[in-house]
């Protein structure tokens, strides 16, 4: 591949190759403070399906060591998103060392708050705002649970902010480093936020899960405890590799839901969401 970037994000190293310069340039700028792995865990390919499609109506196909058939290509202007999706894809399809939870996480005093929910629940937004309030960001997409220790490992890739969340995060982090606005992606407008210095420096430090939250945005403020049985079922659905880890996955997940309190929280706006998370954390941490 013509253009190449190496990135280490938490315990996972990536080599990203691209037929175009632009996506690699964007990655190198936004990930400039991240370490570079000598030997990566995964390869990502951003490629043109036909040689001339590099120039004529360029469309980025996402591939790598592990691929899914029929993934729709993205326009060249969304190259950064394509690279992020390519890395997520490798993790989702092939990460076998850790139990992968589709969740965001923040840490304080070695204890982690895990937030999981469907797209639009506010995982990324809450994580970004908690980072602005002094929490260490562990990740906005995946939390990695080590079946051997039960600890949560960070995966602090760029925070992917969507639609209204972009302005909210800009207001909360006026000094924050943001990527270019990517309008009209399959998930609406996207803008990436670079995790702060601390999130990057401490990305190799795991934390003990202390609170599990199931947030929902756009509902009247409410909260209820989630019993371990329900948390277990919801997390099997939030994990991309639970089935593949087999017994190790089952053990890791049952241990997590038995040892960590879980709450479902509804919130009408981000201010009340943050307030709710911090009150619950106060009690749990």
């Amino acid at each position, binding site marked *: *591949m013509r253009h190449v970037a190496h990135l280490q994000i938490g315990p996972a*190293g990536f*080599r990203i*190759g691209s037929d175009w310069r632009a996506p690699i340039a964007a990655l190198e700028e936004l990930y400039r403070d991240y370490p570079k*792995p*000598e*030997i*990566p*865990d995964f*390869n990502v*390919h951003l490629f043109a399906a036909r040689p001339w499609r590099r120039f004529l109506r360029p469309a980025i196909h996402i*591939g790598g*060591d*592990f691929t899914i058939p029929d993934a729709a290509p993205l326009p060249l202007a969304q190259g950064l998103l394509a690279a992020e999706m390519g890395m997520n894809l490798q993790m989702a399809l092939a990460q*076998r*060392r850790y139990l992968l939870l589709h969740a965001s996480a923040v840490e304080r005093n070695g204890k982690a708050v895990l937030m999981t929910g469907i797209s639009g629940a506010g995982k990324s937004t809450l994580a970004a705002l908690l980072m602005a309030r002094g929490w260490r960001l562990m990740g906005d997409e995946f939390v990695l649970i080590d079946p051997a220790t039960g600890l949560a490992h960070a995966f602090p890739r760029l925070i992917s902010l969507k639609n209204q969340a972009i302005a909210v995060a800009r207001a909360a982090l006026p000094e924050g480093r943001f990527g270019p606005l990517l309008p009209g992606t399959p998930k609406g407008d996207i803008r990436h936020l670079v995790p702060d210095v601390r999130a990057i420096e401490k990305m190799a430090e795991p934390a003990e899960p202390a609170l599990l939250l199931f947030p929902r945005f756009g509902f009247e403020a409410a909260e209820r405890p989630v019993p371990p049985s329900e948390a277990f079922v919801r997390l099997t659905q939030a994990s991309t590799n639970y089935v*593949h*880890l*087999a017994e190790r996955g089952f053990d890791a997940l049952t241990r997590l839901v038995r040892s960590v309190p879980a709450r479902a929280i509804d919130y009408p706006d981000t201010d009340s969401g943050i307030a709710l998370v911090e009150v619950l954390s106060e009690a749990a941490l």
Partner: protein
Amino acid sequence: MSPGWRLAHVLRDPGTALGFTAREWTELFAVARAEQMAGTLAHRLNGLALPPRVQRLVEDAIASAEQVRQAALWEAEMARRALAPLGMKVVLLKGTAFAAAGLSPSAGRNIGDLDILVPRDRIEEAEVALLAAGWEWVKPDPYDDAYYRRWMHELPPLIHRERDRMIDVHHTILPLTARIRPDAQALLDASEPLENGLCILSRTDRQVHAVAHLLADGDLAGGMRNLWDFHCLIRDEGTQGLAERARHHGLGREMARAGRLSHALYGTEVPPEWQRLTLLDRLYLRRMTARDGWGRGSRKFTRLAFYVRSHWLRMPPLMLARHLWTKYRKGYRPVG
């Protein structure tokens, strides 16, 4: 050396990897993954003084392959339970057979679908029993379904609705349209029972099947892996009686070629008459090792040539034309 050849060299002599640069290690694993051989590579490297990051890759690949093996054996057990009341011979093939019998190709080997062989005159009974046990058809198209039943060596693929795993039920080892017609009854008659009542092919038939799969069917995709199976079987079990058995099944030429390719690629010990490559053999090797340092398919023209050859092997020209026309009218377009 090309990245594909480098993988072959490391499989043959893992010690040669110890002097690798970071880039060579990276490419080695990228190619191994593309060839579905990461677990095999990991087993070969395990125990050497590896760089820490490589050690991690090796451990993960071994753990992952172990899970694949367990799931494959469980799938075989599920099929056994579904078919046991019929009292027919059920022969495990390929990856699952190697794993069930503890044969050496199974170390780290990826196993996709469950492949079994049953007597042709009882294949409908087997299908009914599998459908009753939760397997479902995945080819809803009536043409595809009819094509499989009339011309293929297996039932249309079935997927289990709960476990999402595919089973291929064969009645012979090559499509009925192919020019070569292996003796399916002889495969069944010579098969050997395992403890649980399932069977595996006899020693020589296992090797014949590996060769048929590699050289008489398909476009050599996965060729490095399939030839590695052959290499391991020869290494452990020798070549005695092999040429005769292959000739009986009409695969004598293919057997000799597999011997030559395996000797060239993996250094397999073979009889002297299998030690000299022909020009055509070199083209096969060129196709099998066609990977760039990212694991992507390279040598597009060679690949295309073998793709065309795979259809040529599979059906006579007139039939191929009719098949392609039907597929075309149904809106199917070749990808790539």
